[in-house]
């Protein structure tokens, strides 16, 4: 059964073009494959993303307004493009290719087969096998720590995962992939902590305490400069 595209995007029927677009953007950010990297639920997120793309596509088709057309084509192509790369990645996994993209493939071409194998197992979600190979490897270089970190993260061992990746970055600070992974970890946790709901709640709104401190600071600064904001103090 096909789902109601309005419901998929979480908007009212007959929502305006802007509303649809905003809802789509928000959801696309939420279910973006980057956010579900190294997550056992990645396939569910992928499916959700597909649903959202389909719903958006359909609504935009129905909107069919000429003046919006160019913009729509653009974002549609974008979404298709991202889907494309994702699909490609998936196919790579299927065909037994080991790396996220060609850049890294090149980089690891000359390295041991074991590392590639570990990557393959991580990508296909076979964490136990990846760990077995890692345990067998003797050379504990930056790449080893990085891969071990990925395995830890996938298992839900975030403390060790973080330390391992941190170690990989320390051993090889110039490596973009390792640094990227570390940044991603920090971003995920900061992104959650300062989510919209929390940000818009009373926790961050200015309270009376802040107001008083601000007034006091302002007064002090004014006095420094020779003026006075609050004359009694």
């Amino acid at each position: 059964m096909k789902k109601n595209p309005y419901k998929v995007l979480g908007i009212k029927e007959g929502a305006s073009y802007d509303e649809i677009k905003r809802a789509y953007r928000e959801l696309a950010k939420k279910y973006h494959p980057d956010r579900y990297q190294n997550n056992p639920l990645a396939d569910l997120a992928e499916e959700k993303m597909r649903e959202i793309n389909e719903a958006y596509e359909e609504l935009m088709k129905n909107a069919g307004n000429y003046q919006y057309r160019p913009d729509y084509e653009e974002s549609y192509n974008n979404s298709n493009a991202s889907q494309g790369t994702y699909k490609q990645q998936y196919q790579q996994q299927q065909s037994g290719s080991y790396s996220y993209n060609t850049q890294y493939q090149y980089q690891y071409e000359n390295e041991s087969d074991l590392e590639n194998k570990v990557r393959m197992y991580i990508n296909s979600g076979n964490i136990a096998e990846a760990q077995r190979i890692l345990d067998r490897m003797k050379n504990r270089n930056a790449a080893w720590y990085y891969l071990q970190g990925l395995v830890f993260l996938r298992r839900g061992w975030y403390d060790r995962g973080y330390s391992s990746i941190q170690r990989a970055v320390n051993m090889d600070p110039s490596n973009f992939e390792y640094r990227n992974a570390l940044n991603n970890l920090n971003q995920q946790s900061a992104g959650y902590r300062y989510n919209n709901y929390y940000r818009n709640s009373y926790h961050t709104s200015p309270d009376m305490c802040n107001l008083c401190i601000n007034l006091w600071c302002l007064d002090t600064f004014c006095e420094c400069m020779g003026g006075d904001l609050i004359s009694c103090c």
Partner: protein
Amino acid sequence: MFGYVEPDKPELKIREYDVFRGYYCSLCKTLGRRYGQFSRLTLNYDLAFLYVLLDSLNSLPISGKIQRCIVHPLKKRFIIFSNDFAEYASDMNIILMYYNLEDKWNDEKNVMGGTGVLALKRAFNKAKRRHPEKCASIESHLKKLSALEKQGCDSMDEVAEEFGAIMRDIFECESINDENDRKALGWMGYNLGRWIYLLDAYNDIEKDVKNNSFNPLVSQYGFKGYNINDFKESIRGKVNFALTYSLSEVEKAYSLLAIEKNKGILDNIVYSGLIVRTDKVLQERGIEDEKESL
């Protein structure tokens, strides 16, 4: 150990607060009906959250009645009618609390624990008969957990894994038909369990050092008898990351669930309540003072 999962009350709408309380009271009544009046004392917020979460995966309207109950005899309250999920959550409540009390009794010979074990024994047997596989799985994780505790395991991840696995069992409710939802629930439970275990460990550092009992954070970072506050301060960043990242995974799993109702309440807990709770423990703003009954 339990009761860390709760809403960020000031941010709830009054209507949402009433509905949440309706669920809480409903679970309490269900416990009383199925397991006797004493079992109502063991009710905690974590299971109330599970009840709301499971019940929100279908679009049946919320129905309840304004009625009296013996816990709050003076004022009538809105109480939601019990359903399968209330029964499931009440079973899980009994199972978890029984194991928890048994653990306390075995480890510290805690008198409260011993009394609780005796009082809950019958209720527990009943619940175990209803969920034999769940109990077997939980028992095997508990066995591993206590073995790790005995050998003084020095990795917080390794110990928290077992508790996470227990919560995964609890969250993977068989009455949820959708396989994807069950998978997301399981991952949510695992990460929530990790968070509960580690948060509790941080909260108990002082007590555990004083009683010389096992604490994963103390054994991982090696407290060597200098100032305990400095020690807590020195590991706060690391612990904060482990906790927050676990919660971010809870949120990722949550956003994949097909929530049909009570979105306000659940969003409040997932996006704010858990963070507030984490900060309270990490910054040690008096938790005990703020604890109050619904």
